[in-house]
């Protein structure tokens, strides 16, 4: 093995360090028209009228589109969202009108001149408020919406967009066999993806009916499918281009600006129109990551064995459902954390509020879910006076046991959580339960947490790969994954190089996705790319190899089974000196006298996930993903007990990665995730004022981590191969983030001697909870 396990550079690295890498808004064609959105200044209001007359007369304005001009409802699962608000607005920042003008400045000025007459409605601020029977109704038509992708169970006449139920075992037995029980209530705010590149879309409608889209997306094939479906255009006529993406984290897997840019282009006779979010609109108009409230009750034996878990999650989906119902199922499927619990009762509600609508965020609901269960585990450890790491080790789920949704695990599917916890035990050096005083007002403590996650992807998600050869014998690899930083292109090149026993220098990957020529990959989400695309690449490589062998068999006068490939040649296994170079056969073989046989070698590969099943609506049983990734994380803090300020000293992760394909790449993904998790744990929150207006629409109000605030990272990998994955590699793209916020809160809670059950854990929040004040 030569390439797997090597930290080969990212394929696109040289262009990224020279400014030559092109992102969506970097290519500008002269003559492009600009679109700009006028957005709602109210969180919940009836629209009594929109006056666009003044704006229409302004310099450079070509068209203005409002909700009255469009009758369309969108939504990945439930079609509840008008692309432009119609008759009412449901969140602050919601698109109301779309101005198309000759230049950016002209479009912005005209958008500001649009007058909207509102009649204010009472605002729903939290999911629990949304549950109450006298809450204002956000969607009066909930009963009439089209379900685009079941399952979902909307409850008309309420703000409940969906309910997911999970029942495992018998709660009576679970509680009876418990000696100790604890309960916790948790509140987590929405979070913003805050990718450095804001979202943008460009659309041109050609006279032959083709719709050309360029967009910042993780899901170009979903954009193609939805535009085709919403506007009645043949799928073959919708061509979606996805260049390099400047960070995504789930926030670019949803389809929003593409629909608006299409409407804008349509309004001006199909001309090329570009719509680019300002940072402010990216924060308030485009979707956020979900917040939630939860109540968790755990029961355990005196020795600390979990016997029962009763969980309720109230998910804040904001004004529209988007992918939240799928996310609610993801939360529910893994709701116990990576622990054996035989008796589980979980209800997850998706609740409409007057917040910016939510979509996938790195971990697909697992970060907030993990926070709740892992805080509950620490409460249990306290109640039992057991070391928090030991409690987790005692309950760590094992091969042969079943998940909450009834999947029987084996080592390949699960990985080795015991090994992760044991390694963490070495890393933390001091027992996590222990608080050490280092100065009169300064104490140190470590918090630990475990995570697990599976993909929760549709049971028919599929992927493809196409390999072509250049005449010199090098290979071109085309797959449907988008490169937003996770290194999927580099990983797939490594997998191909390994299978072909070739230098990675001779593999040329197609980085810019075009739905017309690249094979479909469901979406570049759920950390599934290495697995699904990797399998498709291996399949395509095998296809190419068998073609190479059959042609070489003729040339070398032997049976194809006598042959092997490597180093750009097909050779006879027992006598490698007898061989033929790729360059002599990949575009057909020519005999010395000039006759030719064979044609171009084109390798074709596919993969479709197998044996998945949707969760049963009555008890939530089903199989949500092909395999899990498990791990253990810890954070060490030093807290000033007099004022609640703290320093994050160390953050540690041990994750079972299956097999390391690119060590530096994997390390970077995990550390980057940890950094985001520390941001969420310590400072990040989408905040709204009393009127429901989002107030965190800039980086000075929505604070993310900065250089120098990061801790000392320690990351270690366990390698338990996932047998059906390429070279055994498990999904790891999202996981670095998952248990960091809870590990941080567990550390701070111990250090401060308070219960930290909501985020972010700012010094002020800790101070308000009342830190132990030392004289």
């Amino acid at each position, binding site marked *: 093995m030569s390439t797997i396990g090597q*930290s080969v*550079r*990212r394929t*696109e*690295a*040289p262009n*990224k*360090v*020279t*400014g*030559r*890498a*092109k*992102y969506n*808004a*970097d*290519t*500008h064609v002269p003559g492009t028209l600009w679109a700009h959105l006028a957005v709602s200044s109210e969180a919940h209001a009836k629209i009594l009228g929109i006056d666009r007359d003044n704006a229409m007369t302004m310099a450079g304005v070509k068209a203005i589109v409002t909700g009255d001009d469009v009758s369309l409802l969108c939504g990945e699962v439930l079609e509840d969202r008008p692309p432009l608000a119609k008759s009412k607005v449901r969140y602050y920042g919601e698109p109301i009108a779309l101005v198309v003008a000759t230049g950016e*400045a002209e479009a912005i000025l005209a958008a500001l001149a649009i007058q909207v007459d509102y009649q204010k409605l009472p605002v729903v601020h939290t999911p629990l408020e949304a549950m109450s029977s006298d809450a204002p109704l956000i969607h009066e038509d909930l009963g009439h919406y089209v379900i685009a992708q079941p399952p979902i169970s909307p409850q008309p006449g309420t703000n409940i967009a969906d309910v997911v139920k999970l029942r495992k075992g018998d709660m009576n037995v679970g509680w009876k066999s418990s000696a100790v029980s604890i309960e916790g209530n948790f509140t987590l705010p929405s979070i913003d*993806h*805050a*990718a*450095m*590149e*804001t979202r943008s879309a460009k659309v041109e409608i050609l006279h032959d009916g083709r719709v050309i889209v360029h967009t910042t997306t993780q899901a170009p094939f979903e954009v193609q499918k939805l535009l085709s479906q919403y506007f009645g255009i043949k799928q073959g006529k919708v061509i979606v281009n996805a260049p*390099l*993406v*400047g*960070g*995504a*984290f789930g926030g670019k897997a949803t389809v929003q600006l593409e629909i608006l840019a299409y409407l804008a282009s349509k309004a001006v006779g199909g001309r090329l129109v570009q719509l680019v979010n*300002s*940072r402010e609109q990216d924060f308030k108009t485009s979707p956020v990551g979900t917040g939630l409230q939860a109540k968790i009750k755990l029961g355990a034996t005196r020795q600390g064995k979990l016997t029962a878990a009763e969980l309720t999650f109230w998910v804040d989906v904001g004004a529209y459902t988007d992918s939240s119902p799928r996310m609610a199922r993801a939360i529910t499927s893994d709701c116990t954390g990576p622990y054996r619990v035989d008796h589980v009762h979980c209800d997850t509600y998706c609740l409409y509020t007057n917040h910016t609508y939510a979509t996938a965020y790195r971990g697909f609901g697992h970060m907030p879910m993990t926070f709740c269960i892992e805080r509950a585990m620490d409460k249990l450890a306290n109640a039992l006076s057991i070391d928090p790491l030991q409690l987790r080790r005692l309950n760590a789920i094992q091969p042969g046991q079943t998940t909450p949704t009834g999947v029987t695990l084996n080592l390949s599917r699960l990985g080795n959580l015991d090994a992760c916890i044991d390694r963490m035990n070495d890393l933390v050096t001091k027992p996590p339960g222990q608080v050490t005083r280092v100065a009169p007002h300064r104490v140190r403590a470590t918090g630990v947490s475990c995570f697990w996650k599976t993909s929760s992807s549709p049971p028919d998600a599929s992927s493809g790969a196409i390999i072509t050869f250049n005449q010199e014998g090098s290979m071109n690899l085309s797959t449907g994954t988008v490169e*937003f*930083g*996770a*290194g999927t292109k580099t990983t797939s090149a490594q997998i191909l190089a390994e299978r072909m026993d070739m230098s990675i220098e001779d593999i040329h990957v197609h980085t810019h996705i075009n739905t017309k020529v690249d094979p479909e990959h469901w979406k570049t989400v759920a950390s599934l790319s290495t697995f699904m695309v990797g399998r498709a690449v291996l399949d395509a490589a095998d296809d190419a190899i068998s073609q190479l062998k059959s042609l070489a068999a003729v040339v070398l006068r032997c049976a194809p089974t006598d042959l092997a490939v490597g180093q750009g040649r097909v050779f006879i296994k027992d006598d490698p000196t007898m061989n033929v170079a790729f360059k002599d056969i990949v575009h057909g073989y020519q005999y010395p006298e000039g006759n030719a046989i064979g044609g171009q070698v084109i390798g074709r590969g596919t993969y479709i996930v197998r044996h998945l099943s949707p969760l049963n609506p009555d008890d939530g049983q089903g199989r949500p993903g092909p395999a899990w990734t498990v791990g253990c994380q810890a954070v060490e803090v030093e807290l000033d007990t007099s004022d609640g300020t703290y320093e994050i000293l160390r953050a540690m992760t041990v994750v079972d990665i299956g097999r390391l394909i690119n060590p*530096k*790449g994997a*390390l*970077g*993904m995990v*550390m*980057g995730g*940890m*950094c*985001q998790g520390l941001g969420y744990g310590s400072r990040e929150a989408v905040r709204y004022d009393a009127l429901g207006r989002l107030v965190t629409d*800039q*980086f*000075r109000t929505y604070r*993310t*981590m*900065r*250089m*120098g*605030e*990061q801790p000392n*990272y320690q990351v270690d990998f366990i390698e338990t191969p996932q047998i059906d994955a390429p070279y055994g590699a498990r999904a790891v793209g999202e996981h670095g983030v998952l248990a960091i916020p809870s590990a941080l809160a567990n550390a701070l809670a111990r250090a401060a001697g308070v219960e930290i059950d909501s985020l972010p854990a700012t010094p002020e929040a800790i101070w308000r909870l009342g830190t132990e004040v030392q004289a």
Partner: protein
Amino acid sequence: MFSYTTRQSLILQVNQDALTVTPRPSDTLLYTLRQELGFTGAKPGCENGDCGACTVIFDNLPLKSCLMLTAEAVGHEITTVEGLHHTALQDAFMDHWAFQCGYCTSGFLTTAHALLTRHPDADRQTMVEWLRSNLCRCTGYQEIGDAVWSVLQARQT
């Protein structure tokens, strides 16, 4: 007094070339570099000075090009990331995996490059202070710090 009230031709010194542009008075340097001159290595991330993605080197100092009007840049030396060629810093960024999506990279490279010129003897603390002007959402920052530090150290020994 300098007055500039309508579109007019100006000459900017960018990456050692004298280039003619015709900005509106309100156009920022970032806008002109990207839209008129095609130096799209300078990225908009916030357009209000918070993120540093738009950083260029301006007479040897890092400057957030979203915060300066094009007209103010006349008579100054501007270097964008496109003006950096085969520097040790660029190699260090690749070797240390100091980026994922790469969107923040130009800004970090220009900031760090200016640091290397202004403070070749910078200690780690000074380096961190300089790099705090830029945001990255993908990495854990350690990779970026290590990349810049490796070049500073190589220069200092």
